[in-house]
């Protein structure tokens, strides 16, 4: 059982990245080839390990599994602790799945290949480490460490305004996460340890909880691009190279949502209840306002970026309903969104690789010229808007159920957002695939090739499988979500008792 699977998955990519620098000097063309293959094999190996881990995960067990623990800074009660439960399991899996996708999607990258591949592997180390960390300091280090490779990926290999986007991304995220450092220090001081499992069972006075909640909201909100902390996102998504955008949208944005689930809900129950309407408001504004903003975009990449923000709004609403259905929906939506958004950006990449402009008014009529591509794009767009039979539907419907349990109006507004998402996604599809009249592209366009098949087909299969058999996923995280909600409600009621007791006195 204890194979140090999580550590292996975390540090293997780093080892791969270091290994690249021993394969020859950068001027040598074989170095680039070696780096690509090292990156691909390392990330595939991690994916295999992730599959092994998911297969060996026992959903009936409460709490964390694959636990590892080692001394790190014992004098300060800080340790190297790793472990996954039903909630984090799929995020580890998602990171492991999408890194090889990103590596494969950047196979044609020719500028400084070794550094590029090393940055992606480093990113994988940071993301997997973050999702499996059970020590707050370790979590923070991975959470922040993501900035380093991502800053370079955007800044070195990005588009025209890459520098602006990279600096904005870095400073926004840093400014957001430093308050969390203060919260970390306070909680460590309060509990005497940074063990997250112990922190979950530490009671904190409601007044302090509010402050901590705000600190967490700043850091996770920026990462998850919750409105109004999303303004870095369109720039970063727009300017990052496509594989970078995929990692940003599919994995990095989930880090924030994961943070809410891991910290805000279990550790700050009273504050969560207090801020619930506020979070609903942020989520709904995110959904509705960003949907309109998406409708106004003229660039496909930015349009999909905005759609991603809108979906994050949905996820936030789902999480803060603090109902089993809502949280399960949010989790499902996160996994589904990770797959779908990655696939959509891959579709954008395919257009780019064929020399197309990404401006909506310069595209059109691709349905007849690239039928396979059109089919894939249509499938993923439908999954993105939540067509039944795709994974997107399950997540959205569960969030709706949770939202109705919480508040009717919230559910209504979330539903409005879904309709809006259909609107802009269909506009996009019409412009790209149909609209023959405006087609200016060359007559001969290759449909998707084998490498692109290899990228899109597994994602398509996963999207459909999850759509038809959502139980495969909910079965695994169901237990963890129920525990989370029960613990939250129990903490709330005990807190209420405590308050009543104080009043009586």
């Amino acid at each position: 059982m204890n194979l140090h699977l999580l550590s292996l998955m975390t540090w293997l990519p780093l080892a791969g990245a270091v290994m690249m620098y021993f394969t020859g000097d950068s001027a040598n063309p074989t170095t680039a080839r070696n780096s690509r293959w090292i990156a691909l094999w390392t990330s595939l190996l991690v994916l295999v390990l992730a599959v092994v881990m998911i297969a060996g995960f026992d959903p009936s067990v409460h709490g964390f599994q694959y636990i590892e623990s080692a001394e790190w800074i014992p004098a300060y009660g800080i340790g190297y602790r790793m472990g996954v439960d039903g909630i984090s399991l799929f995020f580890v899996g998602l990171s492991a799945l999408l890194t090889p996708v990103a590596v494969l999607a950047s196979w044609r990258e020719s500028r400084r290949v070794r550094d590029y591949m090393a940055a992606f592997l480093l990113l994988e180390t940071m993301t997997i480490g973050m999702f499996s960390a059970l020590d707050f300091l370790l979590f923070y280090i991975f959470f922040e460490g993501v900035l380093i490779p991502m800053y370079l990926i955007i800044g070195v290999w990005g588009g025209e305004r890459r520098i602006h986007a990279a600096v904005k991304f870095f400073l926004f995220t840093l400014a957001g996460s430093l308050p969390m450092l203060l919260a970390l220090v306070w909680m460590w001081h309060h509990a005497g340890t940074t063990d997250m499992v112990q922190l979950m069972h530490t009671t904190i006075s409601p007044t302090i909880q509010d402050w901590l909640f705000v600190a967490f909201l700043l850091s996770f909100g920026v990462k998850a691009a919750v409105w109004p902390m999303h303004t870095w996102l369109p720039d970063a998504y727009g300017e990052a190279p496509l594989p970078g955008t995929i990692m940003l949208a599919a994995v990095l944005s989930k880090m924030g949502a994961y943070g809410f689930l891991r910290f805000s809900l279990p550790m700050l129950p009273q504050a969560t209840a207090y801020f619930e309407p506020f979070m609903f408001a942020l989520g709904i504004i995110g959904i509705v306002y960003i949907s309109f903003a998406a409708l106004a975009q003229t660039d496909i990449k930015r349009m999909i970026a905005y759609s991603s923000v809108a979906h994050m709004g949905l996820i936030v609403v789902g999480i803060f309903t603090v109902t089993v259905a809502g949280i399960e929906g949010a989790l499902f939506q996160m996994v589904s969104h990770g797959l779908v958004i990655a696939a959509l950006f891959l579709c954008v990449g395919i257009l780019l690789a064929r020399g197309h402009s990404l401006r909506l008014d310069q595209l059109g009529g691709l349905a007849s010229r690239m039928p396979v591509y059109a089919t894939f794009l249509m499938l993923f767009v439908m999954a993105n808007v939540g067509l039944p039979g795709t994974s997107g539907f399950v997540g959205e419907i569960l969030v709706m159920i949770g939202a109705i349990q919480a508040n009717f109006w919230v559910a209504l507004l979330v539903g409005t957002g879904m309709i809006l998402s259909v609107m802009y996604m269909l506009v996009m599809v019409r412009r790209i695939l149909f609209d023959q009249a405006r087609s200016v592209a060359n007559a001969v366009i290759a449909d998707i090739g084998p490498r692109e098949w290899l990228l899109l087909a597994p994602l398509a299969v996963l999207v459909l499988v999850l759509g038809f058999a959502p139980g495969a996923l909910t079965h695994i995280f169901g237990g963890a979500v129920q525990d989370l909600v029960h613990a939250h409600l129990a903490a709330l009621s005990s807190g209420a008792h405590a308050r009543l007791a104080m009043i009586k006195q």
Partner: protein
Amino acid sequence: MSTFYTVLPILFLAVAGMVMLMSGVFARRDHSFAITAVTGVVIAIAARLLVAAPTGTVLHGLYQTNDFTRFADVLVALGAIGALALSVTFNRNIGITRFEFPVLILFAVTGMVVLVSANDLITLYIGFEIQSLALYVLAAFARHNLRSSEAGLKYFVLGALSSGLLLYGISLVYGFAGTTSFEGIARALASHQAAAMGSTVGLVFVLVGLAFKISAAPFHMWTPDVYEGAPTSVTAFFATAPKIAVFALLLRVMLGPFGPAIAQWRDLVELLAAASMVIGAVGAIRQTSIKRLMGYSSIGHMGYALMGLAAGTADGVSGALIYLAIYVVMSLGTFGCIIAMSRGRQPVDRIADLAGMATDDPRFAFALAVMMWSMAGVPPLAGFFGKFYVFAAAINAGLAPLAVLGIVTSVVAAFYYLRVIKVMYFDAGEPGLDSRNSGVSLVIGIASAGVLLFAFHPSTLTTLSTMAAHAVMASQGF
């Protein structure tokens, strides 16, 4: 006999310094390289002797050795040896290869060791002056260079002012407390309130005098000019060893003899910390010279370390010491990179000169990027841990507003550190810098490895700094 072993390192440093001075004067040929190498070895041996020196107070309470002084001395030695290793090629290139350079550094180190171990205000002042005199000469070492002379003069005038303030403060404290020994002052301040009033004024003067030397705002004005004007090899030394020594002294004096008056000086130290962090962050934004940038950056770093002092707890001292240790390594790495910046053997120091470095010399760019990220406090690099420990100490001591300010300034500072990385990685350019020499590469390599790998094993440094902090607190019976 234990007295002998306690003072042996000082004797060794002083005698070795004089021997080398004589051999330099009477040698017929230029032996500066050999003298530099021997100086490095001498300092290393002295550091070994300092670590081995028995704990205790000797010479009628003038001089003390404990875990704290060992910690600080090793850091000082580290900074000095690093700076020496960086100086060789640079000094040759700009034509200041003179044997006095290493000898002056040796004398400065002697002063610093005395300073760190001082257990009496008189010893303190003597150590302070020994190091300062050597430093004044070093700042103006490139004597044919106008900027260097200007830097030397500026440093001398302000240094003399700070020495004066310090001495005045010492005399006031002596006048009111009736003694110059650290224990005596602590007793006096703890017992009668009347002495406390006058001593508080003296204390403030002492604090200001020392704040000048560590370039804490608002006494920082000399820093950017001296950093920029002095030869880079001297700047590398200035940024490390003297700051550590004076900061260590500050920790000892404030928490030792002036420990009972913490209520009086805490607000002041908080103010110094806050001002330093703000000025360090804001002042650096518009700099185009990387040396000036580092000047402001060091002001900011001193602010963070002062946060540990403001906490006034063992945790705070330990945090400040960890911060300083990491700061020394980061500074040496950064100055290694700056010293490597020369074109046609002429040093260049504009940030724009670094454009395109990432393709031209990837290792250099990577090392400097690591240093910049670390200084910005991005985990998992060492600089983050330094910040973590001082923030932790500050919050535990109830200084949350200071910690919040520290966070705000961190973000501002991250902006200019990022700019250096941006120029190297994102901007196109043909830096065409000279190839690095192996000594500089070694320093850069060791420093980057230390900064990168610190996260894997932070506990050794933590343990040592905790021991050192307890030595400070325990020596005055806290």
